[in-house]
């Protein structure tokens, strides 16, 4: 857990980076700090592992004031990923990933095991171990950057625009992969980006920064539905509804099918009759669902999970989710 309590940071030259910032990142969740450049989001992140130190206020890491913790130990207990990737070019991929376990003086056999585990987690072939970072593409390099940050199994992970330097397609892939990894690890994540789309996609909670302060701290849905002021509205852009379609799953709007006893043949055949293209997965976004509905002869399509029909969805469901105000 990370807790900011009335934190102010003033640089020696008098620049006020952030003022009286307070927020909490609950254990195992992802909070995205988003805002224009120079808004203080990166400074806020650096306050967590003490790459910067607060002028006033307190940052609590796992309930303890981080200024009372040893700076080096603190950093070794927190994963850190940066936009420039910053891999150590003179070390092999394996040595890069092993950085923090080495610093913590783990036994060699444990380090080797962990490196294998992480290569697998990041979906990288095992022979990458002995290659040098420069031989790899940007996307692969950042996968290793993430693996290196996760190596000592930290409770907290800081990610400073981790996918910002990658091309759009690679970025999208890495975001999806990371969302899957996120489900498998119980890590508290603080993620910095300047892209609202990335924030909406990656965050459980989003903190929108304007110069030096948090304007709104809410869930993605809440921010899209109830932007607090004009700044937030402008920051989101004028295609709010469209963005909401991207982050809402079919499951949230569908009409659930009545529970039937398990093993009912009818249920299973309904899912398979129309083929895979016909049904919509429950965890698909409304953007996917609408695309399918528009291209289908049927006004209503089944929603499936693990091959079982769990409900139905039609355009009407999607519309009603957004309420009458969005219908005009």
């Amino acid at each position, binding site marked *: 857990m990370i807790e900011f309590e009335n934190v102010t940071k003033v640089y020696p030259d008098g620049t006020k980076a952030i003022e009286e910032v307070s927020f909490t990142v609950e254990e195992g969740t992802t909070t995205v700090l988003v805002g224009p450049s120079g808004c203080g989001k990166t400074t806020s992140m650096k306050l967590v592992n003490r790459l910067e130190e607060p002028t006033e206020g307190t940052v609590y890491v796992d309930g303890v004031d981080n200024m009372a913790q040893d700076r080096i130990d603190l950093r070794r207990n927190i994963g850190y990923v940066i936009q420039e990737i910053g891999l*150590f070019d003179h070390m092999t991929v394996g040595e890069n990933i092993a950085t923090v376990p080495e610093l913590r003086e783990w036994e060699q056999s444990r380090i080797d095991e962990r490196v294998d585990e992480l290569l697998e987690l990041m979906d990288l072939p095992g022979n990458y171990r002995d290659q040098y970072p420069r031989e790899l593409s940007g996307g692969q390099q950042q996968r290793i950057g993430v693996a290196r940050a996760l190596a000592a199994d930290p409770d907290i992970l800081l990610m400073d625009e981790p996918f910002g330097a990658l091309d759009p397609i690679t970025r999208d892939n890495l975001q999806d992969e990371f969302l899957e990894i996120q489900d498998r690890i119980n890590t508290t994540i603080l993620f910095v980006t300047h892209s609202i789309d990335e924030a909406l996609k990656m965050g459980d909670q989003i903190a929108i920064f304007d110069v030096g302060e948090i304007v709104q701290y809410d869930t993605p849905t809440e921010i899209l539905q109830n932007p607090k002021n004009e700044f937030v509205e402008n920051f989101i852009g004028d295609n709010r509804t469209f963005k909401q379609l991207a982050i809402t799953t079919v499951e949230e709007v569908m009409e659930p099918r009545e529970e039937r006893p398990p093993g009912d043949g009818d249920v299973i055949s309904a899912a398979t009759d129309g083929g895979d293209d016909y049904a919509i997965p429950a965890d698909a976004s409304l953007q996917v669902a609408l695309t399918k509905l528009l291209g289908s002869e049927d006004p209503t399509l089944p929603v499936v999970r693990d091959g079982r029909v769990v409900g139905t969805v039609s355009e009407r469901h999607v519309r009603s989710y957004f309420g009458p105000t969005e219908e005009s």
Partner: protein
Amino acid sequence: MGLIHFVLGLTVGSAYVEFIRENFTQLIARLAEHILITAQTVLIAVPIAVSLGILITYNDQAATAVLWLAGIAMTIPSLAAFGLLVPFLGIGSAPVIFTLVLYSQLPVIRNTYVGLTGVEEATKNAGRGLGMTRRQRLQRLQIPMALPIILAGVRNAVVIVVGVTAVGAYIGAGGLGEFIFEGIRQGDTVMIVVATVVVSVLALVVDYGIATVEQLLRLRNGEQIEQRVSTQVIRRAVQ
């Protein structure tokens, strides 16, 4: 005309061959002295210069001052330095090695400093963020990355040292310079030319050898470079 040139060339050539044959043992002995002085200088100079190069990364003002002083040291004429040192260190190799150590400082200090400070900011930041102390960043990141650059400085210094060692014979340090001064005294061109060529070849060989080690280090650091023949041979032999 062609014939005259050919015969002249042959006679001149045979004079060199004859000189080498007659003085072979002596030549080898002088070459050994030359190499010994160079080696002693490098063993003393490099640790000092590398330490200084590391120390000045902590303070910009100190860096400017030290690099300036090392630059000044290089401008002192070698004969003047020998002359000034003989009263304290006597004649022989001691004052020569002292002077050569001074001469070696600039290239090695400068390359160490540039190599260490030239490591990418992102690399250093990543190291800091992952919990490396300043010392660990130096040991694990900066020094290994700077090593080929430091070695290039050493290479530079060694070539200077091999050349200037020849002058050291003037104050009785021995080495191939003995032949050169003797040749001057006797007006023996052959003697001067042979000794000079051997000095040059020694410098070239050392230069090539260190350059090869430098390439091997760059490859070890994962850099992609065009490899010298020697580098390729060594890599093939090792694999």
